[in-house]
Structures are given as structure tokens and as C-alpha cells.
């Protein structure tokens, strides 16, 4: 039997549309996050040292869950403290910097409590840390938010009792394109200079000052071949190693 279209002529057979199968397991595999402290720094050290450190890091991660987080996330860290009530102290803050490689990897959390700015540098693999919770997932325009020290305090205040914002569990981590307003100069560093390459500040300086700051730009740096450090292959190897070990 053939179908008849509105013209009266028999219509060409059109097969049904192919079903789109969304394999959720496959989607999760595509999303990879390798914590930056796994990538060894550039140098002439024996790779055995990094291998041994990685083994210890994976051991710690099997016992204690370190979630995926970037600079700009709001975290709550509970540490074991003999001097605190109930022996545990909790600190909520925005991650402004992630530094160090290997077991000495650190991250700095900042918050403003009672009009006083407080920053604590936590070591990721320190056994005193009992829990790390991600309260809000939000990447910012920069890798280093040290300029928040010279910004208005409202940009660094976060409620200590805030509830964790629900995670969508999709692929992308949302980027907050917030432009922060600064306190009047002098600042701790000259953030307008191109060396810092900050995109997250709303500079309200006169154009003359901005042009003067560009005098210190070094446009040849991005073409400098001796400074290149391509980590893609190293990352692939380490990712395979780490993911296999963690699955065991």
C-alpha cells in the first residue's frame, strides 16, 4: 500500500526519524577534570619523584573525597581543631588561588566576617581537613582572584550558613562574568598592568592611566618558544593513570 499526498500523487516513502540515544555514561566519560596539582612542573627532576607523590595523592583521594573545584567556587572546609568546640572548625569562603604541585597543593579561601577580611590557605592533602563541600559552582574570568583584597568588601562577603546551590550535573561549569568594582587607589598590586591580565575588574581609571599601564606590556612573551610548556600529552598519560587507580 502506498500513501497518497494532498496532490493526489503517491508520496515517496520516508523512513521514520532515527532515535537519538543519549548514553549518560558516555557523556560522563567525555567530561574530564584533572586537578592541576597532578601536572608536574617543568624542570629536570626525576619523574620517579612525581610518580611516588601521585601514588600518595591517589591513596589520600581514595579515603577522602576531594571534589572538583576551580578558582571562584565557594567552598566550606571543616578541619579538625583541638581548640575548637566539638573539635571541628568550619570556614566558608571563595577560592581565590590554587597553588603548589603534588602533595603540597594549596588553595586560599577568602571571606569577610564582621567587616574583617580573612583568608586561610588550606593544604589539599592535609589530614587535618575532614570535609570539603562545594557550595556554589562558578568559574570566574581570571585564574587568580587576589584583586578581591582591593575590591569593595561586598564582593568577598559570603554567608557562613549558605545552603549548597543545587548542581545541574551537566557538562559546563558556569562562568560568572562579573566585573568587580575596586576601592580607590593605592592597591596592593597595580592590577591595571598587562602582566596580570585581569579581565574581571571594572577599571574606573582615566584613559591616560590605562594607556600608561600598557607601557609595561610585553607582547613578545606569548611568542617566546623557550617558555612553552605543552602539557596535553602529559595530562593524557596522568589522567589514564589516575582514573584507573581511582576506579579500583
Amino acid at each position, binding site marked *: 500500500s502506498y500513501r497518497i499526498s494532498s496532490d493526489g500523487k503517491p508520496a515517496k516513502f520516508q523512513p521514520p526519524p532515527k532515535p537519538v540515544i543519549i548514553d549518560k555514561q558516555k557523556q560522563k566519560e567525555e567530561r574530564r577534570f584533572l586537578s592541576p596539582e597532578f601536572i608536574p612542573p617543568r624542570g629536570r627532576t626525576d619523574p620517579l619523584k612525581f610518580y611516588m607523590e601521585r601514588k600518595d595523592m591517589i591513596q589520600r583521594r581514595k579515603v577522602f573525597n576531594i571534589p572538583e573545584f576551580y578558582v571562584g567556587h565557594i567552598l566550606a572546609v571543616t578541619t579538625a581543631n583541638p*581548640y575548637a568546640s566539638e573539635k571541628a572548625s568550619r*570556614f566558608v569562603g571563595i577560592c581565590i588561588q590554587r597553588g603548589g604541585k603534588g602533595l603540597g597543593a594549596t588553595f586560599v579561601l577568602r571571606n569577610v566576617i564582621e567587616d*574583617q577580611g*580573612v*583568608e586561610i*590557605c588550606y593544604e589539599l592533602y592535609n589530614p587535618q581537613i575532614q570535609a570539603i563541600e562545594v557550595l556554589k559552582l562558578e568559574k570566574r574570568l581570571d585564574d587568580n582572584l587576589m584583586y578581591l583584597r582591593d575590591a569593595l568588601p561586598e564582593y568577598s562577603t559570603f554567608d557562613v550558613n549558605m545552603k549548597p546551590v543545587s548542581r545541574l550535573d551537566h557538562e559546563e561549569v558556569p562562568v560568572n562574568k562579573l566585573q568587580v568594582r575596586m576601592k580607590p587607589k593605592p592597591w596592593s598590586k597595580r592590577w591595571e598592568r598587562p602582566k596580570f591580565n585581569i579581565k574581571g575588574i571594572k577599571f574606573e581609571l582615566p584613559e591616560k592611566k590605562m594607556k600608561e599601564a600598557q607601557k609595561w606590556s610585553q607582547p613578545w612573551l606569548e611568542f617566546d618558544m623557550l617558555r612553552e610548556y605543552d602539557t596535553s600529552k602529559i595530562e593524557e598519560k596522568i589522567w589514564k593513570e589516575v582514573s584507573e587507580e581511582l576506579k579500583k
Partner: protein
Amino acid sequence: SVTGACQAIQKLTRVRVVDNSALGNTPYHRPPKCIHVYNKNGVGKVGDTILLAIKGEKKKALIVGHKMPGPAMTPRFDSNNVVLIEDNGNPIGTRIKTPIPYILRRREGQFSKVLAIARNFV
């Protein structure tokens, strides 16, 4: 130069008084400054006593936080905070609103009265 780079609180650092004492909170045309640190080296960290010059008077004070980064897992404050103290260790104010690091609790015997008036700990 002859002296090495000094950090945290030393002689002539301007300091912020954090308790609610009258001496610390009444405005004066000069900020409170440190004139001596009771230490072998002239550098004051959290938990050290210093001598302050406030409103033309000399007063002892306890350092409760400084701008210099300390050991990991300890807080770093955005201002050099200080609590006014008598010679016997009794605080002059009655309340401390700003957060105080937990490390001070180690010397509970010396600073028990200061820790008793503190509200927030970090």
C-alpha cells in the same frame, strides 16, 4: 641595608584596636602605633604582647591577627588587629566582635580572659 626584611608587627607599625574599649575607639588625630615588642626579635606575631602609644598614653596590647601570611591552615587578616591589655593580662574592653584565630587557645592560661570576651573564632 643593615636590618633584614621585617614582617608582621614591629616598632612604628600602625595597628587597629579591635575591642570595644573607650581608649581604642575614641578618634584621635594620630593612629595607635607600636613602640615595643616583648620578644627576643623585634617582630610580633599572633599571641605576642606589644607596647602601644594611643592618645598620648602607653598601653600594652595583644596581637590577634596580622596581614603577614603565617603557617598553612592559619588565618591571615586584612588588617593588623590588636586587643588592649593591662599589665596583669586583663583586657580593658568587654567585647571582641572581630574573629580571633583558634591558635590563641593554646595559651589558655595566659589569655583566658581575652578569649572569654571573644565572640567569633576562625
